[in-house]
């Protein structure tokens, strides 16, 4: 194997120039670097963000407030890859801090923001919720080192919501609002809550889909006192006692058909529709789920948020998303991008987001803006504040994306569930494929 001398970036740049000459610069305006003056000498920022966070009206307000032009492109991995590779990086990119920070930093794509944070009047170090440590990475440990981004809001995603009305109907005792249940007890409760009408399920007791299979298993293993990843994050091991215990639990859960799994798919794709319609009693979702619950008067009175279950002695309540924004190193407008970032994370938009109740704010000072209008909102805030003590950064590998690990899980899980395979057998298959992916990824960033 020979090291490539012609870089992809160089080739893309050359091609972009050739293409511009052939087709005219105007035709390629979408590929033009995001730098440059907009109309009237204003700089134009290109941001990769969804419309529900940067609506046309919101963009107008942002442009007037910050005196810049803003062009929004939809969040799209394909487009981001092409833009980064061709030297036309966006100025602000949406991302999942918990699982993407090591990946983008290891590839030297993200701009460290410590200097900006140090001089910020809106985002002060002592006001930043510790959960934002998932956006820090020092090259080997996630949670330490420079900050590369910030969550727009967050949840501790291993907590779960439950509908007391369905508990009452089944005559099942509510989970504690302060003490974590064990995973085994959680599954038993799920079985008791599951209602069948002949062969069809009318109420699922428990949905353990969470924010993805791998992250769920990673959390279970951590709460059992183990770790899926090795210390250097370059390999993982499902065959440890804690890893096998997590796999065994999931296999039992799926075989019991008390909730959605690869063999019992959720036709809606996420937990809200069945929860909303009283067909799901417990959803493995964090505080953010309360945003949807608040809009349903009945559910807002009967829903409660419970602490993250535990598999052993360790009480761990991590954050798997911390969805927020980062600034690419190759952006041509670092200062303007930071102004937008700072205003979005610490200005009026942050206050409005906090008041919406779709996630915990990244700034501790904004907690007072959280909604407390319903029983569920009030209880959930108390539960989250109590749970904060058990937050822990679960380091994610810089070598592969979480989707790669989820795709391996989905490759082997359906057969393992149906064939009655043991956790050990499944662990061996997962270890082999996932470690191969990790080794390949490490080759590319060493």
């Amino acid at each position, binding site marked *: 194997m020979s090291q490539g001398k012609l870089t992809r970036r160089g080739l893309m740049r050359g091609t972009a120039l050739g293409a511009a000459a052939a087709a005219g610069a105007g035709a390629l305006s979408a590929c033009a670097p995001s730098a440059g003056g907009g109309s009237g000498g204003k700089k134009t920022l290109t941001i990769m963000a969804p419309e529900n966070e940067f609506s046309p009206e919101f963009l107008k307000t942002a442009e007037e407030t910050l005196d810049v032009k803003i062009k929004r492109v939809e969040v799209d991995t394909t487009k981001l890859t092409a833009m980064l590779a061709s030297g036309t990086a966006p100025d602000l990119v949406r991302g999942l801090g918990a699982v993407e920070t090591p990946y983008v930093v290891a590839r030297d794509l993200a701009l460290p923001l410590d200097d900006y944070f140090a001089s910020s009047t809106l985002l002060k170090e002592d006001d930043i919720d510790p959960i934002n440590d998932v956006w820090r990475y020092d090259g080997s440990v996630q949670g330490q080192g420079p900050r590369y981004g910030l969550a727009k809001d967050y949840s501790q995603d291993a907590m779960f919501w439950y509908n007391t009305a369905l508990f009452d109907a089944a005559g099942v005792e509510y989970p504690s609002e302060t003490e974590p249940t064990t995973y085994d007890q959680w599954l038993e409760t799920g079985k008791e809550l599951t209602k069948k009408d002949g062969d069809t399920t009318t109420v699922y007791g428990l949905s353990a889909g969470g924010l993805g299979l791998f992250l769920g298993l990673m959390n279970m293993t951590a709460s059992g006192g183990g770790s899926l990843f090795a210390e250097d994050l370059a390999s993982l091991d499902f065959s440890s006692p804690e890893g096998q215990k997590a796999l065994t639990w999931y296999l039992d859960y799926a075989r019991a058909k008390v909730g959605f799994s690869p063999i019992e798919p959720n036709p809606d794709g996420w937990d809200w529709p069945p929860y909303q319609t009283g067909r799901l009693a417990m959803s493995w979702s964090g505080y953010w789920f309360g945003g949807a619950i608040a809009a349903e008067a009945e559910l807002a009175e009967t829903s409660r948020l419970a602490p993250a279950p535990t598999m052993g002695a360790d009480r761990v309540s991590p954050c798997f998303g911390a969805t927020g924004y980062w600034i690419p190193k190759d952006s041509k407008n670092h200062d303007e991008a930071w102004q937008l970032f700072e205003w979005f994370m610490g200005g009026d938009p942050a206050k409005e987001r906090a008041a919406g109740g779709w996630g915990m704010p990244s700034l501790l000072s904004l907690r007072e803006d959280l909604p407390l209008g319903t029983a569920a909102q009030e209880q959930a805030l108390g539960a989250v504040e109590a749970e904060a003590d058990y937050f822990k950064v679960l380091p994610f590998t810089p070598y592969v994306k979480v989707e790669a690990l989820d795709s391996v899980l*989905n490759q082997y899980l359906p057969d393992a569930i149906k064939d009655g395979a043991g956790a050990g057998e499944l662990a061996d298959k997962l270890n082999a494929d996932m470690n191969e992916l990790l080794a390949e990824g490490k080759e590319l960033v060493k």
Partner: protein
Amino acid sequence: MTATLPASRTAPPASPARPRKRGRAGTRTRTFYLFVGPWIAGFVLLTLFPLGYAFWMSLTNTDGLSPNWSYVGFDNYLKVFQDEQTIASLGRTGIFMLATVPTGVAAGLVMAVLLNRDFKGRAMFRALFYLPAVVPGVAAALTFKIIFDRNAGAANAVIGAAGGEPLSWLADPYVRFVLILMMLWGVGGSMIISLAALQDVPRELLEAAKVDGAGPAYSFFKITLPLLSPIIFFQVVTGVIGSLQIFVPSLLLAPVNGPAAVTAVPEGNYFFMVHVYAEYFAKSHFGYASALLWVLFLFVLLITGIVFKIGNKAVFYGGVDPTERKD
């Protein structure tokens, strides 16, 4: 005009005539390039360049973002034939093609023949049968997910009413049948093409056959079908190419929403292009996925070539029996 023609024939080649001819030819050449230029530019930029770029990537181990990629020669191509998931997904795609293309074309043709008859409400039925073809794929997939939901879907309600047990339609092994049904639901597109072709069949030929004593079946198989064969062949070729590249409907039927669906597509619907997408954007194997695309490109070429070979022996171009063609 008549006076000038002989004069120009008999006159010696006048020198001013040549520049005029070159001028005309030049204008025609320029006009030709002016018209085909945009297409050529589009072809080079949007087809040739991506093909070349994908080929170049297929010789590397790049993940699209990391700086330390290397050339790996043809390793990615060798891996294609050792990767069990690739082979299985390719086989699955082939079976899907064999299941959907003949069925779809035949169903479209049968519907076209039925709707080509004179009966009351014909226009309404034509519109009704064509309607599913214009329903966006996302809406169709959502509808099918609701119909085939294990607990609340209409499909299991029918099975239940007949005394059967509910099936997990959206999981393996049944989800492949849901996808095939979903594809056939849009058969109105094929129907409309066949219907248009049916209306082009010369009425006098059918009437002459009738006068000669031919029955409806004989007329259909000996006159109508041969005259429709170029259109049927067109549908087979485009159907084959489309089915080999099936991708979005698989994602839409997956139990996870959004791009992450690619990590949760049930095995039965895990086709070659789904595998390519997963290799690209879930596993970041840009080099290997590019090799997969080239393999698919060559596979599509091969299959299309075979279809053309068969088609040349069966299609009545211009109403001429292929066995009597001299070329």
